[in-house]
Every structure is written in structure tokens, then in C-alpha cells.
């Protein structure tokens, strides 16, 4: 794994809101094709850190590169090479499934022929051929999440950022969602994912655990379990996060 190309590298990344330091000097590296689990308690600063990597938020200090571009000065270039799925469902509810995909794909500069081909494949894999022309507000949550993932990955980005993509869905839908993540990863996409489900952490190649704005642990799930003498990632997490002050 270590000899692979680095797609995300961050040094001393910090974000302050007034006196509050949401993200405090974090440093990490993510390799191409990796599934990187970005864990942490509520309020640990995961989303803030991810937003800085995606060019949605200016870092207070620190530096970093995503997909070969500087996160401070080249945010718009980064945006051409990443996909992002936010915690809150954010596709247009009053557009149809197809209109949403077409909108985002066109913005990413794909031509209409490629869009047609790719969406056809996507609809087939997801079993969503019949809902193409249904308004997004009318489809169930599980499908919405699959659709949001498709919208974020249709343009084959280098990295896809997923912020709690499986929040609020049932275990079998979660399972299917992770199959999509594996498929994307096998196609060469790097996956940067936050989650609260520790069983999902086991599916990642490497994970980091954030506590109060710091990264307290970073390694593969197997090595972390070994290091903390724990049987599951759940145990590892509880040991690492036991001193967290921000979550309650």
C-alpha cells in the first residue's frame, strides 16, 4: 500500500471559528484507490475537515493537496476531480432522477452521449430504470442515497468524499451501499468516508479516529485492534475516544 501514489495529503490543517478550534493541526495521507475511513465522535471536526478538503471552506492554517492541487489556491481545480456527498441529502427534490444526474454530469463537463451511456449503466446496476422520470422527492430514502452517490461519482472523480452516507438507513441498504463503495474503489476511485457505524470501519483499508479536533489514531483496522488489544473496531473507538470533551 505504501508505495502507491498519494492523492490526499494534509499537513497541520486547522480551522478556527472565533475561539473554537474545530480542527486542530491534523495531518494525513491517503493513497490512490484506498477506502479511507474518517472516524470520530460527534463534533470531533470530521465534517469541517472534509469541507476544507473539498474547497467548501478556507483553512485557518496548514496546507494540503488533493488530486495534485493545492487546497488553498486551487479549490476550483480540485472540484473538477472530486465528488462529494454531504451528510444532508442535497439533490433537487423537484427534479426527476434523470434530471438531477444530467444536471451534475453536465456541470462536470461530460457530453450528452457519455452521460446517457453512464446513466443507463447506473440505472441498470441500481435497478432504478423505472424511476428515471420520477421526482426525487417521491423516491424512498435508500434510493435517494444511492442516487446521491451516483451523482457524486458519475464523472469518475479521483476521490469521492462521503459524509455519513449511510445515516438513517436499514442494515441491508447499508450493506448494498458498501457494495457500491467497493465497486467505485475497484474502478480506481479513492473513497474518503466518515461514519458512525464501527462495523463499516472494518470495511476500510485504513481509518483515522478524530477526537476533539485531533487525529488520535491512524492505521489499518487490523493493526489498530492489535495496538489497542481490542477485538473489534468498536472497542478501539471507545478506548481512543474515552477522553473526548466535546461529545456527550
Amino acid at each position, binding site marked *: 500500500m505504501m508505495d502507491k501514489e498519494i492523492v490526499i495529503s494534509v499537513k497541520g490543517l486547522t480551522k478556527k471559528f472565533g475561539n473554537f478550534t474545530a480542527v486542530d493541526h491534523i495531518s494525513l495521507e491517503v493513497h490512490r484507490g484506498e477506502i479511507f475511513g474518517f472516524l470520530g465522535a460527534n463534533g470531533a471536526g470530521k465534517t469541517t475537515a472534509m469541507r476544507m478538503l473539498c474547497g467548501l471552506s478556507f483553512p485557518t492554517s496548514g496546507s494540503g493537496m488533493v488530486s495534485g492541487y493545492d487546497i488553498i489556491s486551487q479549490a476550483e481545480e480540485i472540484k473538477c476531480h472530486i465528488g462529494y456527498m*454531504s451528510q444532508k441529502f442535497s439533490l433537487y427534490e423537484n427534479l426527476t432522477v434523470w434530471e438531477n444526474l444530467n444536471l451534475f454530469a453536465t456541470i462536470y463537463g461530460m457530453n450528452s452521449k457519455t452521460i446517457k451511456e453512464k446513466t443507463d449503466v447506473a440505472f441498470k446496476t441500481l435497478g432504478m430504470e423505472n424511476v428515471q422520470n420520477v421526482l426525487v422527492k417521491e423516491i424512498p430514502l435508500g434510493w435517494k442515497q444511492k442516487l446521491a452517490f451516483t451523482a457524486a461519482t458519475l464523472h469518475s472523480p479521483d476521490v469521492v468524499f462521503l459524509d455519513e452516507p449511510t445515516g438513517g438507513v436499514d442494515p441491508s441498504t447499508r450493506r448494498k451501499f458498501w457494495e457500491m463503495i467497493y465497486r467505485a474503489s475497484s474502478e480506481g476511485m479513492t473513497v474518503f468516508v466518515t461514519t458512525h457505524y464501527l462495523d463499516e470501519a472494518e470495511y476500510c483499508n485504513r481509518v483515522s479516529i478524530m477526537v476533539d479536533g485531533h487525529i488520535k489514531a491512524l492505521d489499518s483496522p487490523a493493526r489498530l485492534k492489535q495496538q489497542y488489544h481490542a477485538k473489534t473496531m468498536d472497542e478501539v473507538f471507545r478506548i481512543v475516544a474515552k477522553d473526548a470533551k466535546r461529545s456527550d
Partner: protein
Amino acid sequence: MNANTLKILLKKEVSLIRRNPIIPRLIIAMPILVMLIIPLVTTLDVKNVGVAVVDNDHTELSRRMITDMNASEYLSVTGCYLSYDEAFLQIEIGKADAIVTIPKNYLRDLTNGKRPELDLKANGVNATKGILGTQYATMSIAHTISQWQAEQGINLPMAKSNAMNFYNPTLDFRNYMIPALMVVLLILICGFLPALNLVSEKETGTIEAMNVTPVGRFEFVLSKLIPYWIVGILVVTVGILIGWLVYGLVPEGKILNIYLATILFSLVMSGLGVFIANQSKTILQSIFMMFAFIVVFQLMSGLFTPIASMPQWAQYITYAIPPRYFIEIMRAVYLKGASLADLWIQYLSLTGFAAALCFVAASTYKKRA
């Protein structure tokens, strides 16, 4: 500028506006309602001014004055009273707006060439009604006297009458209001809708999905402005149609000139709307901020009160208020048939405001916090 991106964004905006359960109906219904009702109810014409009369003369002339006043559609005599105090009571209880006191020996003095004086007092609480009411009463009385003189075959020095014409104020005022109402509609519709549209994208979080894509700021902001050209043209078209069908008012000038000004002004308002949305986190904030602008726009742009009668310093401020130019264009094209050449200053000013506000809207739109 990426044409494909702009095209798909515009398509998205139009689909979203069309699928909104309220907005398309509002765009048509609001102009219809406003144009049908407001010109009928907002008139500066004063009717039925209550006049309390204290007749101390008790002659044929004084009685005729009273009958003539009562016959006028602008005045109605509430009664004749024996003393001024009794008449004043009528004002206090709200029945009368003015008191006319005819002095003792009025007719005798008048015939003797003495120029006797009638006393007219008005309730100033409703200033318009008071001022216009006393003017109407003065004119009515002067008219009675001159008629009386003609009948009696005498010529008295008092015979000069007030110079004010009894033109039909109601009709004129409507013509003055109809172009102005279209301006009000554009201010409201093209100002609020884009602001609410953009802030609601913030509230639902879809804006973040946009901000994380490489979409250009200018394309995105333009996609929020351009649909309101069409909305503006729709609104003005409804206004022109109702002005013609209901009130028989047809623009004297070219309709194309009206549309050109409409497009420019829609851009001004939607640019302002987007700028306000950029500063607001919630719909409530944006509505409140928009209101602050709209109140100034309505009251200082010459919509309801002529700019020429404002204090000098206020007149200078009106140059910075974009609807001022649009109102001037609308009234001049509608009522006087003015052309582009006559109004080039106004068109140029509107173009300047439109360009500036679109630039401000695009440059205050931040994809990153």
C-alpha cells in the same frame, strides 16, 4: 463562460419554478389582482367632503349656495347649524370635514359692493381631504355667486372665480397609477423571488452540492437572474393587457421600449435579490432585508409622490434609486409616447445599475466559506 453549464442551469431553474405549487400562479394572479383592484381604490380624488354650514344670512342666495354645495358630487352638506359651536361639534364627532360660515347681511353687503368674507374652516387631520374640501367648497360658492349675478343682471367685483379647473381627477389619476403599478409589481416579484429562491437553496442544502462542483460563479448567478427577464415580461404583459381591456389605457409609445426597460429593471431587481440572498442565511433574514430596500424604493422613487416636491437633499438621493428611472420611462412612454432618443439618460442609467448589480451579485456569491 460555459454555455452548456448555463443552459442546463437555466433548464433546472425553469423546471423548478414551473413545478413550484405557488410561484407560477402567483406570477399571473398577483398582477391581475393588483391591476384590477388598486387603480379603483387608490385615488387621490376626494369625494363626499362633509360640510357643516352656519347660515347667518338666511337669504335666497345663501340657501342656494347650500343647495349647490349639496348637489356637488364632491361635497355633502351635513346640515345647517345655528352657531359655529354646533357646527364644530359635527367635526368633533367626525360627521363633517369643513365648516362654511355665511356672515350676517352677506347678500346685502355683496350687492353694495362691499366684498364680504365667507369663513371656511377645515379639519386638518386628513390634510388632503381638508385642503381639497375647502377648495371644492370655494369653487362651488363662487360658481353659485356668478350664476346668481348673471340671473340678476348685475356685475359685481367679487365675480372672479378660482382658476382651478374641474377636470376629472379620477380618470387622470388612474392613468398616472397604471404604469406605476407595473413598477410596483416588478419590484416585488423580480426582487423577492430570486432572493427567496437562492436562500431556499441554502436552507435545503442543495447550494452546497452546487458549490462543491466546478460550476462557475457567473453561470450560477446568471441562471438565477435570467428567468426573471421572462417573469418580468410576463408581469408587464398582463399589466398592459388589463390596462387596455379594463381601463382603456394603451401605451402612446412603442411597447418594445417598455419591454426593453422591463428587462433592464428585472435585472436590477433580481441582481439586488441575489445580492441580498448572498448576505442571508435564512429566508427570514432575506425577506427583512429586501423590505428595507423596497420601502425606500416605493416611497422615494416618485411612485406615489412627485420627486419635484421632495426637499432638495432627498431629490439628490433619488438619483441612486433605480426604480426612479424605470418609472420615468414607463410614464413617459405610456402617457406621452416618448421614444428611446428622448429617454436615453434613463435607459443608460438603468443599464448601468443592471450591470453594477449583476456584478455585485456574482462577486458576493461565495462558493467557499
